[in-house]
C-alpha cells in the first residue's frame, strides 16, 4: 500500500471534521472519494498533506508514519497535493510555476520537457502569467507542477471544478495514462461522480466526516450503469 489511513480524526479547533477514517490506496491505483459539499473531502486531503494535524490516528505513506514530518518535506518523499481551486500562483509565469514544482530535483529540466509534452497548451504559453490562463489551462498547470516533483502519490482535490465536460474528460484520461504508464497512485476527491468513477480502481463515499459503507461496485452501478 502506498497510503494507509488508520483511525484518522482531524478538524479545525475542537470540532472534528474527519472521524475515524480508515482508507487504503494500493500502489499504482486510482482511489476516488466521493461526497457532497461539507463531507470533509478537502479536510481529508489537507490532513494527509500535512496542512492539518490529526488529533488521533495514523497516516502511513509507503509504510512510514508521517507524524512529525514537515509539510515542505512531504513532496520530496513523493507525496504531492493539487489543492482545490488549483493553487496556481497567478503572479508567476507558467514556466516559473513548473520550475517551482521541482526546484530541488536535478532532473527538473528533463521533467519539464515531459510535462510540456503531456500538456501542449502549457508549452505554447510558457511565458504567460498564471492569471492569464483559462480554468482548464490552470488545472493542467497545477497537475503539471505536481508532476515536476515526480510524485508516487498524487492527491487531487476536485480537479473538475468549474471545467467544461470536455476538459474534465481530458484530465481524467491523463490521470488514467499516468497510472497505466508511470505507475502513479492517485487519491482523487470529486463531486463529479461519473467522471471520477470512469477511471477509479476503487471508490469510497464520504458523508459528514465519515466514510460510508458503500462498495465501489454499487457506486459504479448507480452512476455508470454497469
Amino acid at each position: 500500500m502506498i497510503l494507509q489511513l488508520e483511525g484518522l480524526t482531524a478538524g479545525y479547533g475542537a470540532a472534528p471534521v474527519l472521524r475515524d477514517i480508515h482508507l487504503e490506496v494500493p500502489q499504482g491505483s486510482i482511489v476516488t472519494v466521493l461526497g457532497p459539499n461539507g463531507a470533509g473531502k478537502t479536510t481529508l486531503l489537507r490532513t494527509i498533506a500535512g496542512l492539518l494535524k490529526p488529533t488521533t490516528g495514523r497516516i502511513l505513506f509507503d509504510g512510514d508514519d508521517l507524524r512529525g514530518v514537515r509539510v515542505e518535506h512531504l513532496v520530496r518523499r513523493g507525496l504531492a497535493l493539487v489543492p482545490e481551486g488549483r493553487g496556481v500562483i497567478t503572479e508567476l509565469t507558467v514556466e516559473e510555476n513548473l520550475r517551482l514544482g521541482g526546484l530541488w530535483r536535478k532532473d527538473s529540466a528533463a521533467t519539464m520537457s515531459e510535462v510540456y509534452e503531456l500538456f501542449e497548451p502549457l508549452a505554447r504559453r510558457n511565458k504567460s502569467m498564471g492569471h492569464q490562463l483559462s480554468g482548464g489551462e490552470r488545472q493542467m498547470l497545477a497537475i503539471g507542477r505536481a508532476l515536476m516533483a515526480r510524485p508516487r502519490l498524487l492527491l487531487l482535490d476536485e480537479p473538475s471544478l468549474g471545467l467544461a465536460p470536455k476538459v474534465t474528460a481530458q484530465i481524467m484520461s491523463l490521470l488514467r495514462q499516468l497510472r497505466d504508464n508511470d505507475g502513479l497512485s492517485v487519491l482523487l476527491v470529486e463531486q463529479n461522480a461519473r467522471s471520477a468513477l470512469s477511471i477509479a480502481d476503487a471508490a469510497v463515499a464520504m458523508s459528514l466526516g465519515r466514510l460510508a459503507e458503500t462498495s465501489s461496485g454499487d457506486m459504479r452501478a448507480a452512476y455508470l450503469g454497469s
Partner: protein
Amino acid sequence: MERFAFLTFDGLANGAVYSAFALALVLIWRAARIVNFAQGAMAVAAAYAAYAVTSATGSYWLGFAAALAGGMALGVLVERGVMRFTSHSAPLNQVIVALGLVLTIQAGLGMLYGNEFRPVGTPFSRDAIDVGGVPLLSQYDVFVFAAVLTIVLLLALLFTKTSTGLRMRAAAFAPEVSRLLGVNVGGMLTLGWALAAGAGAVAAMLVIPTELGLHPHAMDLVFVTSFTAAVIGGLDSPPGAVVGGLLLGLVLSYVSGYLGSSVTPIAAFAALLAVLLARPQGLFAASKARQA
C-alpha cells in the same frame, strides 16, 4: 536653466535614497503584508553600528560593512524574535508591535549614545563638480547613485534569475501552496526581512551624512518620505518603489528650490493624494487577475 539642472540632479540623488528605502518597505510588505514602521529605527541602529566600528578602526568602509551586516542581523532578529510571534488575526497587531519596536530601538540608542546629533563623514567629496560651468553632482552623489543602483540590480537578479528568488516570490504570493511544493516559507520570510533591513541600512548610511548627522530619530523624515514613495509606486511593486522614490525626490527638489523648503511636506502629501485619487493601487501595481 542652471538652477533647474542643479535641482534635477539633487532631486535624483535624494530620490535614489528614497528608492532604496522604499524598496526595503516593499520587500517586507510583499513577503509578510506588514508595513514595517520600525524600518527607520532599525536602519538608524545599523548606522550607529557603523559609527562605532568607524570610530574604533578609522575606516569608513569597515563601518559600512558593519552597517550592512548589522542591519541584516537586526532584520533576522526582528522577524524571528518578534514578528513571527505576533498574531496575524488583525493587521493592526503588527503595526502596533512595529511602533513599539520604534520606541524601544530609539530609546535604547538614546541611552547608549545620547540624543545629540553626531556628524558623520563621507568617503568621497560632497563638493559639486562643475559641468559646463554648472555645479551638478558631487563625487558623493555619484557614490549614492552607484550604491543604490547596485542594490536594485542585485535584488532584481536575485528575484528574477535565481531559484532562491523564485522561492521568495512564491512564498510571498502563496505561502501554503509554496509549502506544499517544498519551499521553506519561514526561511524565505526571514531572508526577506534580512535583505530589506540590509537595504534600509545602506540607505541610512547614504543619507545621514547629507542631513544633520546621526541621531536616534535621524531616519524619521526619510521613512515618511520613502513610505510615500512606496505608496505612489505601488506597495507591491519593487520597480514602483524605485520610480516612486526618484519621482518624489525630483518633486521635492523642485518645490524646495522654486517655492521654498517650508512647502515640501505639503508637496509630498499633494503628490501622494494625486496618485491615490488617480490610481489608488499605485503607479506600478500589478493588473488584476483573470477570473478562472
